[in-house]
């Protein structure tokens, strides 16, 4: 009786060893991700905004702006600005500094350059700015190795009307000849 039990356990042990051996053959993440050479680096810089804004600096025209001129229903002199950011968000002074038009300002009144305008957006859109900083949101141009430029929020979204417009989809793949459209067999 005792001997048969021993035999069984030996068989099981052998089976286990075989399973282990076969399991070893399939590669895992650890094996493939092992890099022997230091990886090539990517150097990402954020695209500066100040050179890209038309008619910047604003002090070219506005030597001073009286705070009362920044009306709450959108700028009267900038006809192209249609303020559609969020219901109730219609005060220029929330982001623009009436005393220095060449700069933005935080809600806490600290001045912020246009080059780091994402700091202004990040005051409310904290989740998005976190994603943008790790590269999960936004567009990067350049190479995966070497120099690359990251667009800031205003590079894609107009800060005054941030919603992206709908697009027209390009041509679909040709439908297979003799194929049955999905709606017909469902």
């Amino acid at each position, binding site marked *: 009786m005792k001997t048969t039990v021993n035999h069984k356990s030996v068989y099981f042990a052998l089976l286990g060893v075989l399973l282990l051996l076969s399991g070893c053959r399939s*590669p895992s993440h650890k094996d493939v991700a092992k890099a022997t*050479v230091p990886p090539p680096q990517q150097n990402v810089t954020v695209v500066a905004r100040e050179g890209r804004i038309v008619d910047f600096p604003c002090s070219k025209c506005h030597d001073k702006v009286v705070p009362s001129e920044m009306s709450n229903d959108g700028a009267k002199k900038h006809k192209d600005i249609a303020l559609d950011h969020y219901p109730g968000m219609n005060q220029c002074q929330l982001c623009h500094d009436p005393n220095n038009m060449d700069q933005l300002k935080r809600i806490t009144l600290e001045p912020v350059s246009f080059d780091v305008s994402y700091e202004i957006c990040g005051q409310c859109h904290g989740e998005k700015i976190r994603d943008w900083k790790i590269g*999960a949101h936004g567009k990067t141009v350049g190479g995966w190795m070497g120099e690359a430029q990251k667009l800031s929020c205003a590079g894609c979204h107009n800060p005054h009307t941030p919603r992206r417009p*709908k697009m027209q989809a390009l041509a679909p793949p040709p439908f297979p000849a003799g194929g049955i459209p999905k709606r017909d067999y469902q």
Partner: protein
Amino acid sequence: MKKDEGKNTQDRMGRRLKKMAEIKMAETSTRRGFLKTLSAGAAAVGIASTTSGCATGSMDKFFQKHYKEMTAEEKEKVFARISEETQKNYDVDINLKDPPPVPGARFAFAISLSVCNGNRACVHACVKENNQGRDPAIQYIRVVELDRGTFNLEEGDIYYEGEVPKKDKFYLPMQCNQCDNPPCTKVCPVEATWKGDDGIVVIDYDWCIGCRYCMAACPYDARRFNFTEPEVHRSQINTNQSYLSNRVRPKGVVEKCHFCLHRTRIGAMPACQEACPTGARKFGNIADPKSDVAQIVRNKRVFVLKEELGTIPNIYYYFD
């Protein structure tokens, strides 16, 4: 616009009929010639005619070594032959190279499904970059339109049209996942497809015999077969070509996405990433912990397609 399209299709039909007639004529003439030599009973003459009929180029191609066993000089010779062939067939001067994998690089994609709006800019940029046949159209990327709240790829639609994004839909672009445990390379009977050191699964089009085992093995429908000679107009050929990636394919071989290796192996981004107007595609070196993709995989809730198959894909999807 519509009228022009109609005219184009008519033109294409005309050209197609002409080509078919030509092929038929050529077939009959060779068959007749073959019968003639047979009736003459001179086998030696037959052999002589076949060898002289073969250009030296195709003989070189026939006796070509496997790509991994070629020396640099042999590769140069092959590149010269292919350039000459393209010059002859398409009247285009190409710049054919084959950059080796960058040491220390492991390529991966991360695609944000919240941002992708299904505009198919990537699909068409890919076709332009990689000289795919236009008729029948071969496209590496499939964008699947799915209902929000569902995730059954079989219920998805890849033939959607019109204004995107549609209400209550999301879009999932699919292409070759460059798996770390690829089923397709294992089934190839001639080892015409293998995994490069940077993670890209490549195909040697000169070595492929067209058995399409790899297409059956791929669980992601990533591979395409050239049933006909790829039809690319000479004005649309991208002259920046590479042996293992986007050179104009011969008839009867399998092709697929190769992460634009002629660009990525010299440090550039793939064409689809560059073309994406939404910024949904993130490409980078996952071995570099500071790269976008590595940070996304660490910080976001990512998933891969058909994880249960153990293929270990290199395209990560996430919502944010």
